[in-house]
Structure formats: structure tokens, C-alpha cells
């Protein structure tokens, strides 16, 4: 019980921060979408982002959410998406 309490105490501020960051990021995408709607709506990465959010919101019996999200994002490797994606890929590391 104390363990749970300690974990919540340690993690809750960071959780609040990350959710706010995500909210701001979604707002930023919406603003961009308002300017260039079709390009954003058809972007596969946006669809994956929304599926990832749904995955996070679903109740889960196992603590492997990070693994499931990485598998989800691995779908990007299956499609020919090299053109727009390569611009965002780091050149090293």
C-alpha cells in the first residue's frame, strides 16, 4: 500500500506534465491542420497517433503499453512512406 502511494507521489506530476504536453501537441497539429487540412488528414502518422491515444485510454490488465505502442508504430515500416518521413528522421544516432 505504501509502495503504491510512493509511486503515485513520485509519478503524478510528471504524468500531469506529459498529458499537458500531449494536449498542446494535439492543439498544435489542429492549428496546422486548419491551415493545410487535406495534407494533415491524410497523413498516416496522424492516424497512428490517434490509434496510440486510443490504446492508452483503453483499460489494460498488463503493464506493457510502451511495447504495444512501439509495435503499433512499427506499422509505418510496412508502408511506403519514405518521402515525407525521411525529412524527420535524424541523420545519425
Amino acid at each position, binding site marked *: 500500500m505504501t509502495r503504491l502511494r510512493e509511486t503515485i507521489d513520485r509519478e503524478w506530476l510528471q504524468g500531469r506534465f506529459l498529458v499537458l*504536453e500531449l494536449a498542446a*501537441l494535439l492543439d498544435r497539429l489542429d492549428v496546422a491542420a486548419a491551415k493545410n487540412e487535406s495534407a494533415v488528414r491524410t497523413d498516416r502518422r496522424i492516424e497512428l497517433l490517434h490509434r496510440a491515444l486510443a490504446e492508452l485510454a483503453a483499460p489494460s490488465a498488463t503493464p506493457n503499453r510502451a511495447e504495444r505502442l512501439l509495435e503499433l508504430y512499427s506499422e509505418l515500416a510496412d508502408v511506403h512512406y519514405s518521402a515525407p518521413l525521411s525529412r524527420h528522421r535524424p541523420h545519425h544516432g
Partner: protein
Amino acid sequence: MYIIQPHYHAIARTTDDYERMAQAGVVAVVEPAFWAGFDRRHPGTFVDYFRQISEFEPTRAAQYGIRHFCWVAMNPKESENLALSRQVLEALPEFLPKPTVLGIGEIGFNQNTANEAVIFRAQLELAMQHRQLVLIHTPHLHDKLRGTRLTLDLLRELKFPPERVWIDHVEEHTVRMVLDAGYWAGLTLYPLTKMSTPRAVDILQRFGNAKLMVNSSADWGPSTPFTLLDCVLECRRRGYGEAELLEIFHNRPARFLGQNPKFSIRPLEISPA
């Protein structure tokens, strides 16, 4: 780039900060009086603290070519101690005429308590009597919304001139009410858990308001003055031009603080090619 760092607690920082800030284009820092991380017991400790920030810190900053100004006040956290606060308030007026003291701050709410309200009101009244600028802290986390509303109610009740008030640490849910009421607002950047640089730039983009300023948290906790420089960089990445950057990071604080003639740094202009 010329940058004014309008909220900086130099007493908690080393000279490394000054050196790197000077290298990055910071020309002035302004140090509000705040909580030292522990509750002080004696009014004399505050008097020496005010001497430190109004007399000694300017000499330390000057070695790096940085101008140092300050504010004096009883901070919101220790305002909970009414007896101590009243004694500190008695000592405040002697500091107001000093050459680098720009006004009374940071004052306001921490946990929105009745005692905090008493000392906040007393300091606003003192500022009106002495025609001083005020810097108002707003609570962090879940207390912020209520604390900001209480702050605006009190300022309205006292008819405090809005252009002489800077309300700091605004976030997405409080920035609009502060700016709409005609006050200056500050976005305070933190490296962890609170306002981040990307969110701050979102807010700058959403509100093109000339009364919105940016500062870094720089105190004894997890903080760094260099988030302000990250913010300049992020603005550049999002397409802000040099004139707009100068406007946000130098001229806005220069205009607000320059209402006190002791702050002699004037807004700058980039001459057209």
C-alpha cells in the same frame, strides 16, 4: 540578440549563469524577492536579504556586463506568518527609493489562504501609496485557477492601475483572463513538470498580445535561466523574425519595467535595410 531576463533569483545561482547568460545576449536580469526554500524566523533576515539583492547582486552581475535590478516584498509563501509579515512590511518602504529597486514583488497567493490575502492586500495598498509597480506570483498546479481569480478580484476592488501590474506564471487556463483585464502577463518556463517551451510558444502564437512576456524559472529548485534561450530558438524555428524576437524578449519587459524611470534600458529597433 538582446534579451532581458525579467524574473531571475540570482542569490540562488552561481556566476556560471551570469557568464553564460552574458554570452547569449542577456543584458539585464530582474530579481524579485521570494521564498528561500525554508521559512525564515526573523524580520532582520529579510532586511539583509533585501540589502543583498539591492546592493550586492548588482555588483556581481556588473562583472559580466549585466544590469541587475530587483523587487522587494514579503513573498506569498511566508505571508502565512502574519506577525513576521507585518514587521517585514514596515521595513519595505526604506528600500523603495534605492536606485535598482523597481517595485513590490513577488506578492500574491501561494495556497489561497486568508492570511496570504491579508498580506497581499496590504502590499498592494503600499504599492499604490508609493506609486510602485507590482509583480504578482500565481500559485502553481491545481491552486492556480482559483488564485488567479482571487487576484483579479482583489486588483479590481482596489482599482489598481492595470498597466502597472505584471501577473506571472500564467498558463493556458489563466492567460486570457489576465490579458483581457489589461494586465501584463508572464510565462515562466520550467525544465520539468510545469510550463514547457513548446507550450509557451504555442501561447505566444495564439495571443499576439503586446503585454505577454517570457521568463525562466531560476531559483534554488530544478530550474535554469537557459530555458529562455531555448524559447528564443523555438520561436525562430517556428518562423519568428529577428524584429519580433527583439520585441518579445527585450522590448516588452523594457516597456513594462521602464514605467519605473530607474529601469533605463529602452526598447530597441532593428533599422530597415
